[in-house]
């Protein structure tokens, strides 16, 4: 039986200790949020809470779930995330498939995609387009403009290219149309890739913040992150940003809610997307390797 030498044991041991410490550093913020969110605000103020709440209470959670804007914003965000990711996937994969095949002008379209990868229109022209297309004040303003990410498109295109062309030829001989090939052969073969990119897109939509403020004039449609920001950091603007004394007074007169509520809100807003990761983990690892070997 192989015995580890003392040196190897210390080496292994120190790696384990290091990894435990690293993971603690990452887990602690979440743990801290959890503990604070379950503390009563009085305890938090009086003694501070570090490792264990004095009393476990649900005050903070009650407060956020009693808040109409918060609940409403969860609805908005879920809608934008689900519908948005779906639209993103359909749009991105169909375009990627087209670009992965020999079609006239492929180079030109590829170039166009790469161009948007490097340069963007900027905030104001984008706003003008959204306004001109009548998307202002609709959830589609958060979904359609970003529904094809150039980066994701290129990776998915590479993935499609890696599917053997013989499959395609065989299907053609059997009389399948391109659409049939795409839907029945290419997409099912690409499930891991699609899972990975749906996660990318979903996280992006879940975190929608400034677009919602910019394009949605109706505050009842605002997404979770906008409402969350008001609960946690509103008025927390640093004083080094030039603020008049009057502005500071106004800021002080509207304090953000207690930290316990802020922490509870952050947890509620992070949990769904956090819980998604472990289940998509295996696809995720596979997904990021896509296109890394074969060009």
């Amino acid at each position, binding site marked *: 039986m192989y015995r580890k030498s003392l040196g190897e044991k210390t080496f292994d041991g120190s790696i384990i200790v290091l990894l435990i410490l690293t993971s603690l550093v990452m887990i602690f913020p979440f743990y801290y949020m959890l503990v604070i969110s379950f503390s009563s605000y009085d305890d938090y103020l009086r003694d501070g809470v570090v490792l264990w709440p004095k009393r476990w209470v649900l005050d903070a959670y009650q407060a956020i779930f009693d808040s109409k804007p918060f609940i409403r914003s969860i609805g908005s965000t879920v809608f934008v995330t689900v519908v948005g990711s779906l639209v993103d996937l359909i749009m991105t994969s169909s375009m990627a498939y087209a670009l992965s095949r020999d079609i006239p002008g492929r180079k030109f379209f590829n170039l166009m995609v790469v161009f948007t990868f490097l340069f963007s229109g900027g905030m104001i022209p984008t706003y003008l387009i959204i306004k001109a297309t009548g998307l202002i004040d609709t959830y589609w303003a958060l979904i359609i403009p970003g529904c094809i990410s150039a980066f994701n498109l290129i990776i998915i295109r590479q993935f499609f290219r890696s599917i053997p062309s013989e499959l395609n030829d065989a299907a053609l001989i059997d009389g399948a149309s391109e659409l049939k090939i795409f839907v029945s052969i290419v997409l099912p073969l690409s499930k891991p890739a699609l899972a990975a990119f749906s996660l990318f897109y979903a996280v992006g939509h879940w975190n929608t913040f400034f677009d919602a403020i910019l394009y949605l004039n109706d505050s009842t449609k605002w997404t979770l992150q906008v409402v969350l920001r008001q609960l946690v950091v509103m008025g927390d603007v640093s004083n080094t940003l030039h603020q008049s004394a009057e502005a500071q007074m106004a*800021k002080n*007169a509207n304090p953000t809610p207690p930290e316990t509520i802020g922490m509870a809100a952050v947890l509620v807003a992070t949990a769904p997307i956090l819980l998604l990761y472990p289940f998509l983990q295996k696809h995720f690892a596979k997904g990021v390797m896509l296109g890394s070997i074969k060009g």
Partner: protein
Amino acid sequence: MKKTNASLLLLLSLSLGMTACSSKNEEAQPSGSSAGTSPSASAGASGTTASPSADPNAKKLDISLFEGIWSSVPDPGGPGAQAINEKFNVNYKTNLVPMDQAAQKLAVLMASGDIPDFVGLGSADASFVKWAKQGAFLPLNDYIDKYPVLKYVPKHAWDSVTVDGKIYGIPRFSTTKYRNYPIIRKDWLDKLGLQMPTNYKELLEVAKAFTFKDPDGNGKNDTYGFVMANGLDNEMAIGSGYASDTWSMKNDKGQYIPGVISEAGKERTQFLHDAYAAGVVQKDWPVLTYKDNRTMFWGGKAGIYYEGTPGSSALFSQILKAVPTAVIEPIPPFKAPDGSQALPGLSGWYQMYALNGKLKDDPDKVDRILSMINYFGTFIDPKDQNENNPDFDWQNGGIGKGYTMENGVAVTPDDDTTSLRPKSYLQVAPWAPSDEALQVDRRAANNPIQKAYAEKSVALWSKPNSTYISPLYSIHSDLYNTKFWELMTKLLDEQTKMIVGNTSMDNWDKMVDSFLKNGGQEVIDDVNQKLKEAGAEPTYK
């Protein structure tokens, strides 16, 4: 092969032409609350004495507003907005966003030409001047005389919103007094047998005692003399003469200079340096935020911080829970090297409304907007701020719904009831005839600690000639508005380093020199020239 190419192209064009699937859904529905009774109707109709516009024959007008607000955002179609629609015969569309995102969105709206009928602006900054010059806003000179409330707007406020001789904004009221100012735990002073400090030397001793002599008596070494946060928030200026934004000291050439580079500023920085070395302020203050400070002070763990008057009732209720016996008082101002012994005053106005330049052919709409501002800006005497005053009751959404009365004070929580109050949709601070007329201490009636503090503080502010009014409030210097704040950031960085001991206090002169060389002198020249032109001097009110 042709066919496959065609269908591939089709796929491609489908995805490229994505905008085609634009929206048909999501019509702006005035949320479920629309069915609710509007609390206004009856009260509003009977109490329109202050509103010149309540002409029943007036045409129904669409009016839109964009503004950043500090409080929580009300639902655009909420009962409060509908009450406004009825009272003023308008279709009022508000687009209110959190204050810290407002500037960016406004810039996009202005640049894209998608400008609402009127917009709320923070101050007469460079963007405002630029937009006014480009004709985005309506000159208001011919209109303002008609609205009684605007007579209270002081001249220097009108001057500030005037560009090339034309008035482009309606300034909104803010107090001159009652600014954020250092406060101290008087009960700690008493417990430790200390006197109220009268200079920085005594202040340092007090801060040391607060830190090491267990003022809260819990047997733990867990208190601090005072708290500060990044950007030198709570700079511990005890008196206007020591504040970094005060212009009252002169240099060798007889020019006014900002407090941040004056001898007084140096004395204060030296105090902060010594205090830091003595360990009476948190070691990590440069990375803390003012929110951390609040938790410390209002949780009863620090002795000195700052607050306005009458102060935030939310904060005072925190300390009432944490330390029911706390006594909080403002620290009377120290005598400063400029000879003053005064409290720092404010400009007397904050934020403004500007009207869309396109409204010049629509005097009806201009009148309706200004009437609304006039109505909401009309001052109601504090003793009448209750359910018996129809205007007050209407503006606050009706008693028992939008507000409740406690100890003779109206309480308006910042929660879902926000949408019930019409005044949430047009947050004009009423123009009070004077700061004293506000009787701010009345608002503190619900909390004994706050009540005692507010009375003490109002008494301090009410002493004649006790409030320093900056001469800069009467001038408009672009250089100051832009360049100075850029340089100020550097100065604060340098001073932070000195305070925590990363650089020596001996570098003070070097810091000032570099400030002057890098544009500071130009700012001082410009400000002083404008002061001379305007004949403005520091005054004490």
